[in-house]
């Protein structure tokens, strides 16, 4: 493995691979999609209601797949249950199992169940075959969809969403803390880390749901609700600006203080991380989408142009946020803790932590989403043309 300069002998090989890049990317999408859903539920932003259920199902799809990269990365995956059996209270990583379970069961599954219960009970009687069994299981034996019951569902759902927002923050914030609390690594160690992770997660989640909404609506040959996507794009812009400000704050702070790690990190940024950080993450992944989305705020562009811009911005944002995770995880391991050298990351193709596996794990959530949409359709089954933006 080519080493520039000097690295401690055990540092030459990277410990955390592309799978560990993938994990925060996936859980970030979960947190972001959920925040978008909560915009409607808690903050009564009615314009985004068409994406409510889709956002929840998207969050669930990504949440179900997110433990897989971790399992595949472990040296001894058969021992992973130990995190539940004997969690070490001082370890942020030990919190993973519980935060994940909490978020899965007490927030997402509960909220989706409460919101869909009406249809589930109906489908339990109207459907046939194996689908009927699935729906009947999901009713948990209760067929009560009276007005009183649905009111209870609504109130409890509201409470769940309320708890869900800080839970989503915790689900992804702790990932940021896993990196941010490592004093041995100056690229990671920062109190800003959980906040940066969280806001970039929100960007990715919102962008993903917007993209999925536009894509699915097109596939269903329906009219895209412009009032909806215009509002989503606005929120995307706001969160993006905060995210950008936070990252620039980190950069400016580092340049100004120029501590002992600065020379080494700066060199790494100019060389090994130049393409992934400067070009992909900052320019293409942040500045360009912000400029595009900002442009829309100050001009009066036609609908089809706006849609193209939204789609482009969303794709660029997702690439940029993935690049950000890459730069944090991989970047943090490319330089020596002696600040005297660098190594390189060899991403192989077919190993357990290789490119093909990573690619497969990126596709899998969409497969799960497809299944979820079939079982719990987020849209009314009759074809309805939604009114255009007012």
């Amino acid at each position, binding site marked *: 493995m080519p080493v520039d300069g000097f690295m401690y002998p*055990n540092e030459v*090989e990277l410990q*955390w691979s592309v799978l560990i890049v993938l994990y925060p990317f996936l859980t970030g999408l979960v947190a972001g999609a959920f925040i978008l859903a909560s915009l409607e539920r808690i903050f009564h932003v009615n314009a985004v209601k068409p994406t409510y259920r889709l956002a929840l199902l998207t969050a669930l799809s990504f949440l179900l797949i997110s433990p897989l990269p971790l399992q595949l990365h472990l040296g001894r995956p058969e021992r992973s249950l130990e995190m539940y059996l004997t969690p070490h209270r001082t*370890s942020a*990583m030990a919190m993973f199992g519980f935060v994940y379970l909490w978020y899965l069961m007490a927030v997402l599954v509960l909220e989706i169940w409460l919101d869909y219960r009406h249809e589930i009970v109906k489908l339990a009687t109207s459907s046939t075959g194996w689908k009927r069994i699935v729906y009947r299981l999901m009713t948990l034996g209760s067929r009560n969809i009276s007005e009183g019951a649905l009111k209870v569902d609504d109130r409890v759902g509201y409470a769940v969403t309320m708890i869900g927002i800080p839970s989503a923050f915790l689900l992804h914030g702790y990932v940021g803390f896993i990196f941010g609390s490592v004093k041995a*690594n100056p690229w990671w160690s920062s109190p800003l880390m959980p906040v940066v992770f969280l806001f970039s997660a929100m960007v990715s989640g919102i962008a993903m749901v917007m993209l999925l909404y536009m894509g699915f609506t097109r596939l269903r040959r329906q009219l895209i609700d412009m009032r909806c996507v215009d509002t989503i794009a606005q929120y995307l812009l706001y969160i993006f600006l905060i995210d950008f400000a936070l990252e620039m704050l980190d950069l400016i702070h580092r340049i100004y203080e120029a501590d002992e790690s600065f020379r080494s990190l700066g060199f790494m940024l100019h060389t090994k991380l130049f393409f992934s950080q400067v070009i992909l993450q900052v320019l293409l992944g942040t500045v360009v989408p912000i400029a595009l989305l900002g442009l829309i705020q100050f001009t009066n562009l036609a609908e089809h142009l706006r849609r193209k811009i939204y789609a482009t911005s969303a794709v660029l944002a997702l690439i940029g946020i993935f690049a950000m995770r890459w730069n944090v995880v991989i970047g943090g391991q490319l330089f020596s803790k*002696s600040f005297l050298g660098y190594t390189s990351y060899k991403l192989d193709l077919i190993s357990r932590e290789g490119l093909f596996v990573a690619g497969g794990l990126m596709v899998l959530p969409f497969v799960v989403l497809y299944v979820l949409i079939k079982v719990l359709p987020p849209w009314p089954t009759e074809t309805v043309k939604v009114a255009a933006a007012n």
Partner: protein
Amino acid sequence: MSITRRQILILLPAAALSWKYLLAGAPELAPNYTQSEHWWGMLIDIPKCIGCGNCVRACKAENNVPDGYFRTWVERYHVDDFHIETPTVDSPDGAIDGFPGSKEQGGKNFFVPKLCNHCVDSPCTQVCPVGATFDSKDGVVLIDEKYCLGCRYCIQACPYGCRFLHPEKKTAEKCTLCYHRITKGFTTACAENCPTGARQLADLKNPSDPIHEYLKTHSVQVLKPHLATGAKVYYSGLDGSVR
């Protein structure tokens, strides 16, 4: 004084819970070895190190260290004049075969052996999610290779780069201060085989250990003191350029 029912209700379960620990007592690790009587560390005398690499070879033989990974290694420093922030450092294969002749001429040159510092406030123990790495009561940071799940968080958290993932066992590994030797009255493999006495095991709780006298008469440092890890490997004659 009579015991009230309330007191019994509290004392009984408490007693039942602590009985298990009482019965366990102190671990019977080796004959005549009591953990609480020892507090292990190491003294490294830089001016004595000749970079022969005997320690690296000995450690490998004693602990079956896999090729390409190092529980201990030696670094060679070359410092030009006052440029202590930018030394030239090398460690060819961890110095397992010593060092070839220097390419650099002049300047200040010396060797620095490195190993796990068995920190009192070890960041690696702090981040282990399951309790596979732990601090023993006699001050040695150890790894339970039957319990480690290979998440590698500890390897990321160690500021000194002393940990690695065993390529076959797929669990984390590092210097154990030859715990299996020191509990039986022997010294570590590296100290045993150091021909100049540059590496010496130190029992900080033993009043007759020579380290106490040494510390009174020499200046010592630990690596990366600003990280407050509580490192217990003391370096005598350590240059400011050492990373």
